[in-house]
């Protein structure tokens, strides 16, 4: 196995007495696409900032590309690409100039940066907007420009903090497609998200984080296999009858989860579970059989929904 590009051991970040990241341990292999999945306030961004060598850990050890960020901040950052949760494009500069100037921050020669900028504008499908003002771009375009900017130094590791939050479905798919290509080219990706579909699409392996701690680790498929049933039956009885109906459903499937608006029944076969529900004389207003997802894994591990 090649040496890992990121090794975090018992990583902790405290703000005053509050531990935003509370002892997490993981490794990322070169070329891997690694995800951090978790709800708001889980500590995803805080972890990303430590990996990005812009936030000092409170304790634990961290090695990025074999270097300690406490000692070698600039050297590490020169090999990273960073897409922060909130775009911080330079609004005083035009689209192409954003790339040129950013490349110069890495100390790269002008000619090399110029050639690379044109390639990246092409990659981000922004060539025709090269001279536009940043403020005139749409949210999706800004995000693509931020990703293009993060690639200007041909980074070995690309850090993406919620790359598609706030974008419409079409813009998300365009972005996923771009990230897919990077993955194919062998760039190591580390991304955070609270969208399970995004994690399933983009991550080879992920950690589920809650309250600064790791709840589970594995590939999306193995996490689902390990922590959930094959299928899920969702039934709705209306908010008043939910609780009483839940009592009558006991014993169907492997496990049952009562949410305010619906009940989830975890079973190998959703159809069989539904047949059993009707056999018991219960008549749900609506019912739906679907595959288990990371959302279900999260619910099982934390008792809470991923998106609040």
């Amino acid at each position, binding site marked *: 196995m090649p040496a890992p590009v990121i090794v975090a051991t018992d990583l902790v970040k405290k703000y005053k007495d509050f531990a935003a990241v509370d002892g997490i341990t993981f490794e990322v292999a070169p070329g891997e696409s690694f995800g951090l999945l978790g709800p708001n306030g889980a500590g995803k961004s805080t972890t990303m900032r430590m990996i990005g060598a812009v936030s000092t850990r409170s*304790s634990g*050890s961290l090695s990025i590309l074999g270097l300690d960020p406490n*000692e070698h*901040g*600039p050297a590490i950052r020169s090999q990273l690409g*960073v897409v922060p949760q909130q775009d911080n494009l330079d609004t005083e*500069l035009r689209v192409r*100039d954003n790339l040129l100037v950013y490349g110069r921050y890495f*100390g790269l020669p002008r000619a090399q940066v110029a050639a690379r900028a044109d390639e990246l504008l092409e990659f981000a499908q922004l060539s025709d907007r090269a001279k536009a003002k940043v403020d005139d771009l749409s949210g999706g375009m800004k995000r693509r420009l931020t990703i293009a900017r993060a690639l200007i*130094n041909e980074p070995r590791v690309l850090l993406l903090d919620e790359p598609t939050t706030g974008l419409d479905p079409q813009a998300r798919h365009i972005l996923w497609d771009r990230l897919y290509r990077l993955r194919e080219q062998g760039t190591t990706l580390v991304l955070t998200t609270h969208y399970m579909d995004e994690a399933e699409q983009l991550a080879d392996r992920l950690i589920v984080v809650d309250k600064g701690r790791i709840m589970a680790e594995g590939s999306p498929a193995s996490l689902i296999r390990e922590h959930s049933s094959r299928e899920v039956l969702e039934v709705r009885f209306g908010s008043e009858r939910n609780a009483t109906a839940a009592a009558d459903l006991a014993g169907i499937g492997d496990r049952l989860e009562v949410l305010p608006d619906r009940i989830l029944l975890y079973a190998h076969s959703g159809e069989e579970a539904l047949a059993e529900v009707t056999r018991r004389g219960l008549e749900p207003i609506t019912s739906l059989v679907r595959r288990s997802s990371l959302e279900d894994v999260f619910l099982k591990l934390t008792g809470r929904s991923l998106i609040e």
Partner: protein
Amino acid sequence: MTTTLDRPRSGGVKALYAGNARAVVGRGLLATRSTNWIIVLTGVFEPIFYLLAMGIGLGSYISGVTDARGDQIPYAAFIAPALLAVSAMNGAVYDSTWNVFFKMHFGKLYQGMLATSLGPLDVALGEISLALLRGAAYGTTFLLVMQALGLNLSWTALLALPAILLIAFGFASLGMGITSYLKTFQQMDWIQFVMLPMFLFSATFYPITVYPEPIQWVVQALPLWHGVELVRGLTTGALTWAMLVHLGYFLVMIALGLIFTTRRLRALFLD
């Protein structure tokens, strides 16, 4: 490799400085395309108006001003070097306070810069250099106006140019550090509140000897007084040993300002 200390300490100069402040300067020059030129011009003309109104207008009623060696000089030649120091200060302070304030709070510019291989010292040096350039531009314009009006009394006036660079550098490095503490527009007004009396009372328009001794000490503690005396010595040609003290004052101010600003940037953006 990795360390497992309980409270990891951050490393030396390597962690602070990548030797690439010029990239920050380059960015600043490119961004000046979207500069508010009215503000720039105001900064250039303000001291010129003072010179015309007070030096030429009021000055025709005033006689008996002497330079540092006790020689009689025209009133305009007395206040012009003070206004020159002020114009360098204004340029530097405008850039290192207002511009920096906006970048810190609205543009998230430094956050972006510090995610690259730049260190906080690169950013501080680069931004301060830009402020210094503006101060130098204001100062050079003013020095040319002085030349045209015959207010440079000695060839040593040429040395006023590096002197105002030094003054601008001092004010810019301290200004940026102080600005990093300010969070609201009201707080930004405090800067004006300090600058105006300093401008009026730093032996700008009359010799410091008009004050009682305790007040003289206060004025002599302020940076502008040192700037005024340094530049006045050079443009009038009345050189004294005390000018070395003024020079030293600014060298110390620059060093402290740089350390202060670098630490602040690090505390704010690399916490």
